[in-house]
């Protein structure tokens, strides 16, 4: 599969809801960068914030990386495991950066209690930050593959297309981090994600 001809993503913000697997997803990404012989830094969130709250992690790669945090408005990509979380961190991406997001909605409790409403126009509002949107129904794909837990892998497959990391290194890094019994389904999920991104972007 060809890679995107746009600038390869090296500074990536990953956002989601605590418990969705932001840590594993960013570990896979960071290890893949490291095996590509780049310097890597990654910031994580542990502790109280993990209990179902909004979670953000930064992954950075390059010849020499200083800050583990990315400057606002300069990330090459935002990858969001939940739709509203994509919007929450959209300002992190640069103007011509990429927003890869899961279209799955997880309403916070305040929305269920009807004290707040879940934003209706997320896609349009994301467009105001960048025109390069890659929406993916990752949960749906994962369920089709028979394991809802591989939704993040679908998204990783999608974003992999926009990095300079070789597919095989991505795959090694992924399989190292997930249980053996799920290797096959993770592999499939990754490939489906990569294909979906290629279709969305009209690159293939």
């Amino acid at each position, binding site marked *: 599969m060809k890679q995107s001809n746009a600038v390869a993503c090296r500074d990536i913000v990953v956002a989601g*809801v*605590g*418990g969705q697997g932001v840590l594993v997803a960013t*570990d896979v990404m*960071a*290890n893949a960068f*490291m095996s590509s012989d780049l*310097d*890597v*830094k*990654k*910031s*994580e*969130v*542990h*502790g*109280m*914030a*993990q*209990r*179902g*709250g*909004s979670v953000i992690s930064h992954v950075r790669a390059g010849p020499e*990386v*200083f*800050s*583990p*945090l*990315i*400057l*606002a*408005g*300069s990330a090459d990509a935002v990858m969001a495991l939940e739709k*509203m*979380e994509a*919007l*929450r*961190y*959209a*300002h992190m*991406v*640069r*103007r011509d950066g990429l927003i890869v997001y899961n279209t799955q909605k997880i*309403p*916070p*409790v*305040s*929305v*269920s*209690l*009807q*004290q*707040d*409403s*879940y*934003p209706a126009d997320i896609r349009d*509002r994301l467009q*105001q*930050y960048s025109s390069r949107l890659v929406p993916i129904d990752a949960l749906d794909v994962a369920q089709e593959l028979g394991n*809802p837990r591989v939704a993040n892998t679908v998204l990783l497959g999608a974003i992999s297309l926009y990095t300079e990391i070789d597919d095989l290194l991505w795959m090694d890094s992924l399989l190292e981090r997930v249980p053996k019994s799920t290797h096959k389904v993770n592999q499939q999920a990754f490939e489906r994600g990569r294909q979906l991104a290629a279709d969305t972007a009209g690159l293939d």
Partner: protein
Amino acid sequence: MSKQLLTGNESIALGAHLASVGVVAGYPGTPSTEIIESMVQADYPNLYAEWAPNEKVALEVAIGASLSGVRSMACMKHVGVNVAADPLMTVTYMGVKGGLVIITADDPGMHSSQNEQDNRNYARFAKVPMLEPSDSQEACDMVAKAFNISEEYDTPVFLRSTTRISHSKGVVKAGDRSATKVEPGFSPDPQKLVMIPAHARKRHPEVLKRLEKLQKLAEIAHNNPPKLNRVEWRDRSIGVVTGGIAYQYVREALPDASVFKLGLSYPLPIGQIKSFAGQVEQLYVVEELDPFWETEIRAAGLSVIGKDRLPSAGELTPDIVRSAILDGQESSSGQQKAQKGAVQDIPARPPMLCPGCPHRGVFWALSRAGVNVTGDIGCYTLGVMPPLSAIDTTTCMGASIGHALGIKKALGDDAPDTVAVIGDSTFMHSGMTGLADVVYNQGDVTTIILDNRTTAMTGHQGNPSSGYNARLKKAPRTDFVKLARGMGVEDVHRVDPYDLQETARVIKEAEEFPGPSVVIADRPCILLDRDSQRAPFEVTEECTGCGFCLNLGCPALYRTGEEKNAPVAINPVTCTGCGMCAEVCGFSAIGEGDDSQ
């Protein structure tokens, strides 16, 4: 050795192993917890590792080990040092035998803490040197340096991390393993180790002499081993004194500036900083939280820009550093300028009690009982979040019981019904003394121990009441019923918090009992006890959309539409089958799911 991608905490663990640490003790606390956890996971040889009941005991254990000639380490979060401050302030007089390193992991920005105190102040307060890494590689390398300084200067040494160091991953190449030259063994030395006034009076001047020697070390530490500080010459119009994570932000935001990077946070190399200042046009200090270095640098008569531009509250970020120093001239790159700011109008997503969390049952009962609730620290502090909104105070670990007693004693007969809630780990940490006070001074206080058999908040570490130790091996369990009785509490109850009615009844009974009561809400954390998870519950057609069940604040419950009476549904992936929603539903519209699937 090949390179690895490690968090700061994993790097400290590796560094401790490479420095041949023999004893490590700590109490969990974000962002320090994974240091001990990863030492245990790596199964390093010749290492005794433990979770102590609290940080004071952890440090006391480490001191005992050090006095036995073994390199030892105590690990804690910033507020843990407050708890350990008593032994700290005196071990500094005693000195060490085997190297003694105290890890303080601070939490600027309060990602998981009740305050953001700057523990560099403890270094000055205790007259103890402090090292501060700026990334994972330094975190690994500085541990051995800390041990060497500790043994050479006969002092405990602080190694300070912050959340962004502890929880950021970076590439680490491990160096060689080194060992102490100290012979193991305990030899009595009362003049040095028994701090009665007569002995301590002789030790204090020694501490001051030691500090002078450390100051000399600081002055040469930038170009001589142990190479803790570093001067980086670039453009000389801006010179920045910085260290820790702030160093990375400076490099990111001001790539051309000259930098005096401090790895030894205390004491400062004032002579060297003066000479640096003399060679740059404008001197800046970029440090997170307090103007700790700035104050010393100003006291040395240098003029410097620091906290007049940078915030003293909250974390720094590369963005803040850039705009503070460049002062708007060039405050963002072209790209950044083009981007819009963050959205402000979308619903917040605060952390919540998990689906199936046993704490929910107690807070449901309390939110309905109309009592004051003095709270404590742990996952259960999330009981303050709406819709349960069931906690009225949270100060520090163990405070709930004393606060409840204080309210009762202050207001006497007019005191509102007041209940203290405290987790099992927190009760072992510092709740027992509060309960002793209630019994001793006959307070009419009900204490609810939320016994989920683990220290859940920080990632399920064992504690003396949970039945497993730091190596996840079986350990004796404190029996809370016997403990409470032994302490003189007559009215002791045990209840399953999943049984909402019974929980409410028991709390009421305890509340009405005149005198001290203890209620043990007994159910393991659902994340630990996967076996007790049942098939997800299901909402039937009977659902009227009244939304009453949503007052449980369970993240697995949601409305299926925007309209007012949209029926509720249950997320089958996150529901653990605890059944509390079915218990509160007035229409019997929630039922057990099919277990056969």
